[in-house]
């Protein structure tokens, strides 16, 4: 456990230290300043503006901004859908995969469009390289950039006053991809390649086995390995919180995640941009202390949850204890603990850390089998998503949702200090409360109603593999993950059915756009307001007590709604006395 503590501390510290300069860099980019980066790539940037006929001076109000965002996403989605359908007749298909079936193509298009990367297919054996590179990887960039473009007007609404201008969507999109995502991905991909992650356009390679063996009278001396342009997709899928792996095994696969260092870096990459965006917020609004307050609030929620998860994973399966099986840290057990579904190069502690980071952010990548986690750890995965992806959250979208929760906290706190609530100088009135509520409300409704439909219908229940409360957890997870644009899967549930393709597709779409459209409407109204000067009578949003209030609101208004459902799933499973389970298994 002490190793786990050290790893967690080292990870968070490293990422925060890297995020501070990245946040400052991003501020200079979005501010349109001239510095080394814009001098180097400014030509390309201006070329793109010339091509699409826009310029940073042409700002948009919230409606045009939202409309541009939707239009851009719609076109991207249709393009991806058609590409997947037609991949069989298109080039760069060395393994000759046929076109993706329509249901799966719809689900996948929505999934990559919404930054969810829920995969109802097996990556390495379904998608052609063209689909992977031009379809999925491109959307990995664009969906992550879309998340940031959701956040930028939110930040500007607090930074500016008495204006309708919230920035130019096309400019924000261009700058995000050109200056932030592309360079970071290239850099990260190079590091990954150096560590052994594969990057090639060859489909398969034949290798000689180190130890040939006999099978059905034949000596097997060669093996076919599936390779491809992995490093490039891996880099953006972690940085952009996409999480859709090249291989079905995702980050447990040695070609995606070859070493201890890559595991560390990939875990960190998931929270790098989300944390840098918090600092960006601090720079743009000139509220650095509030930005630190946000980060601290997130850490206060995240650290105990990840440590509990790691603790239970390292403690191992209590059933094995009662059967006298050792799960101690021995040479053969790679750190010990619950080793079911764990890649033993990584071990159960680091896997639990990875799992919590992947569900706290909207990445949803996995380097272990989430279905095999100790019930409480699986429950923590669920819980982190059910917080509304606000602890770090998706790139951009997470902080945007966090701000919606802060609006609630500011409202209660503002009343409690005897003033009309105001947040960073902007008055919070009934329209803001309405829109923030709509934004926060959508996700619990999707998850609860979606799960209710799944458990009530034969189509929903037939996909379930496990008996007992675990089966319920699987269904809850299958709805929670897409509704929060996370994309991680609990497994154990066959989700490539018409029912789940439609249900999850619907959840992904609504979980993305219905959450952020009200938020954009809200900031449209906030931007038009005057900025009220701060005095000792105004509620400060950078104090420990306000951080505490915000955490309280996130738990009370957000997470507590899932308490009954969690009680019937992971909590009941965790609390079950061992004999009951043994009985159930033999039964």
């Amino acid at each position, binding site marked *: 456990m002490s190793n786990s503590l050290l790893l967690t501390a080292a990870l968070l510290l490293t990422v925060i230290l890297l995020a501070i300069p990245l946040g400052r860099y991003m501020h200079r980019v979005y501010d349109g300043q001239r510095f080394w980066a814009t001098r180097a790539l400014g030509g390309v940037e201006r070329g793109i503006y010339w091509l699409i006929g826009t310029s940073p001076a042409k700002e948009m109000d919230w409606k045009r901004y939202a409309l541009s965002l939707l239009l851009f996403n719609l076109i991207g989605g249709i393009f991806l859908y058609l590409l997947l359908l037609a991949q069989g007749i298109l080039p760069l298909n060395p393994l000759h995969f046929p076109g993706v079936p329509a249901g799966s193509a719809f689900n996948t298009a929505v999934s990559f469009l919404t930054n969810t990367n829920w995969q109802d297919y097996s990556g390495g054996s379904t998608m052609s390289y063209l689909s992977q590179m031009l379809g999925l990887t491109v959307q990995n960039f664009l969906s992550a950039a879309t998340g940031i473009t959701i956040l930028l007007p939110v930040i500007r609404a607090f930074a500016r006053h008495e204006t309708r201008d919230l920035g130019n969507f096309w400019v924000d999109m261009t700058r995000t991809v050109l200056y932030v995502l592309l360079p970071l991905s290239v850099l990260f991909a190079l590091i990954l390649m150096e560590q052994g992650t594969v990057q090639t356009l060859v489909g398969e390679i034949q290798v000689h086995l180190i130890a040939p063996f006999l099978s059905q009278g034949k000596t097997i001396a060669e093996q076919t390995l599936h390779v491809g342009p992995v490093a490039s997709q891996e880099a953006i899928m972690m940085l952009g919180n996409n999480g859709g792996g090249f291989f079905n095994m995702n980050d447990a696969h040695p070609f995606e995640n070859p070493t201890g260092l890559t595991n560390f870096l990939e875990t960190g990459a998931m929270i790098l941009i989300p944390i840098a965006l918090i600092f960006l917020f601090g720079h743009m609004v000139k509220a650095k202390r509030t930005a630190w307050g946000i980060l601290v609030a997130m850490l206060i929620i995240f650290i105990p949850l990840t440590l509990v998860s790691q603790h239970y994973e390292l403690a191992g399966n209590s059933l094995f204890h009662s059967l006298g099986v050792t799960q101690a840290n021995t040479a053969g057990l790679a750190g010990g603990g619950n080793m079911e579904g764990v890649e033993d190069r990584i071990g159960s502690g680091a896997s639990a850390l990875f799992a919590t980071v992947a569900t706290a952010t909207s990445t949803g990548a996995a380097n272990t089998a989430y279905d095999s986690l100790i019930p409480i750890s699986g429950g923590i995965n669920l819980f982190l998503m059910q917080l509304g992806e606000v602890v770090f959250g998706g790139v951009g979208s997470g902080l945007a949702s966090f701000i919606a929760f802060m609006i609630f906290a500011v409202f209660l706190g503002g*009343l409690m200090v005897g003033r*009309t609530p105001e947040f960073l100088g902007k008055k919070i009135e*009934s329209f803001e409360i309405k829109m923030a509520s709509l934004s926060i409300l959508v996700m619990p409704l999707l998850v609860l109603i979606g799960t209710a439909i799944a458990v009530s219908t034969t189509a929903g229940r037939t996909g379930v593999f496990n008996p007992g409360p675990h089966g319920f957890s699987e269904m809850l997870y299958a709805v929670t993950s897409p509704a929060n644009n996370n994309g991680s899967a609990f497994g154990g549930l066959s989700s490539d059915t018409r029912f789940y393709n439609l249900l999850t597709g619907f959840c992904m779409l609504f979980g993305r756009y219905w959450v952020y459209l009200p938020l954009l409407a809200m900031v449209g109204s906030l931007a038009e307001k005057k900025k009220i000067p701060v*005095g000792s009578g105004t509620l400060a949003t950078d104090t420990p007590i306000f951080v505490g209030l915000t955490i309280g609101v996130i738990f*009370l208004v957000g997470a507590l709604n899932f308490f009954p459902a969690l009680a019937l799933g992971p909590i009941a499973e965790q609390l079950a006395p061992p004999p009951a389970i043994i009985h159930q298994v033999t039964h």
Partner: protein
Amino acid sequence: MKKTHDMGKQQWQQQAAGALRDSLVMLSPRHQLRNPVMFIVYLGAILLLLLFFHDLTVHPAEAVFTGAIDFWLWITILFANFAEAVAERQGQAQASSLRESRQELTAKRLPRADRDASYESVAATSLRKGEFVLVEAGDAIPCDGEAVAGVASVDESAITGESAPVIREAGGDRSAVTGGTHILSDWLVIRVTQEAGNTFLDRMIGMVESAARRKTPNEIALSVLLVILTLVFLVVTITLYPFSWYSVHYASHSGSVISLPVLIALLVCLIPTTIGALLPAIGIAGIMRLLRANVVAMSGRSIEAAGDVDVLLLDKTGTITFGNRQAAAFHPAPGVSEQELATAARLSSLTDDTPEGKSIVQLAQQRFPSEQQHPSDQAQWLPFSAETRMSGVDDGEQQLRKGAPDSIRQWVEKQGGSWPSAVDDTVQKVAQSGATPLVIASKEQVLGVVELKDIVKTGIKERFAELREMGIRTVMVTGDNPLTAAAIAAEAGVDDYLAEAKPETKLGRIRQYQEEGYMVAMTGDGTNDSPALAQADVGLCMASGTQAAREAANMVDLDSNPTKLLEIVRIGKQLLMTRGALTTFSVANDIAKYFAIIPAAFVSTYPQLSALNIMQLSSPSSAILAAVIFNAIVIPFLIPLALRGIKFRAESAQQALRRNVLIYGVGGIIAPFIGIKLINLLLVAL
């Protein structure tokens, strides 16, 4: 009106009995629909009532539990109704005492603004704007209006509660009269400015009576939040049924599916019933507190605005200082003793009836009580004239003069005397300190300087410090020159001052603050204050103010006490704080309720969930009942708090937030754990 809030015990009992009756009347669906949170409870209670009768015939064993839950749901609704009814009753008591002063009045209508013209008696309600009315000693003034002729003493106690009569006269700033007040002596001709139904009194009554109906912006925002929370919890409980059904039939294969009474009990416990029930009462109580401070707000909105105020514009005279300059010190000229100066100053002021003159006599007697010299009978008094700008006395050989330095200098030099430079220094020094120098001379000899000072009210500096703590800036407005203004501002401890203020500069300053994003409050009474009063976010007009000023303001202070603004800010803040604190408390209560109901509801399906029963409640049904009972009785427990408002202290936002989060947030998490456990113990004992 002042008396109504010193409610006797008997009166309270009467009101409570009335409120109890009202709570039953309020059970009508139409009334319940107005409060969405309580409406959900109402629907649940009706549904359970039907189920109860069904259970009675089909499974009588379950009817007891269903009946018990349903009983407490109805009690919850009645408690909520009661909270609103108590507040409304208090408001109505206030309104009816006002209405007594508005019996059917008759008016003496004049054809023109001429006292001697013959009048006709008409009903006050038939008066139209612009018509003229005669009122004479003993008459009640039939309407709001403006005196256009005459002078009269008027008893305005019906409105202000102040029994001393006030003078109302045509022209100037004392021309406004209020319907419902009485003429004690003399007469007035009044021009009608407000028609019946729209007078000051009408609006005051309307304000009290409609307090429950009109929602303020903050109240609307809060209601939205409560409705959204209710909606979420509705979905949480409805979806719990399929979850439970699946768990029973497909997962655990044991126990029974969650029942309707348990689902409804969970729903009612989770939705914010506490704040939902108390919200109307809190709003009415805020307006009542303001009325008790003898301030009439023209809208509920202005009370909330008072809580938001960042800048107070306060008139120097009357608010910060007593308004009259008073003698503070004697500064004798070289070669003259202080006693000589004091004696001369006293002699020259003995017949001076101005407050300044009186204060000089007083100071002299205070300094030298033995000095009893009186001028002879032949003494000739020279009153102050604008021409000489001096006053004084000629008594035989003695010629004393007192006046402004330059006029005395002229006089002394004319007598052949000389003007000592030391006196110049003293004059300069006194003027620089913000006081007014008066020079005393005896013939050609300058005796010295009397320092007249504006006396700052005691305790005002501490109040301004409190305001500063709360983040509110105070700005003193005065017609004085910048030098005087700065000195008084420093002494009173205001943050800023506006010297040589004219109505336009006042208006300009308010606009400037508003441009910068501040909310501004000010007091005023004169007609020339009207634009500024209208511009300010909170404009408080004195009851003695002109009609125009009253129209422009959004609050009227019946006591005409300019320091009342500080009280109003306090009431506004307290109103918002009470709402916020009780909402936080209500939401924080949910944690304990989950821990009471969830294990109880699912323990038959998953026995291991009894580990969540951290309160160790005895049986599932008693646990659920205890949660519902707690949810109901917390309402009457909090009614006094809702009516009184939560404790208010002058402190910074940070301190207030810390205190309220600890009391109502953390307290709101812990209290129900204790309360539910205690009720459960009681239930088991019974």
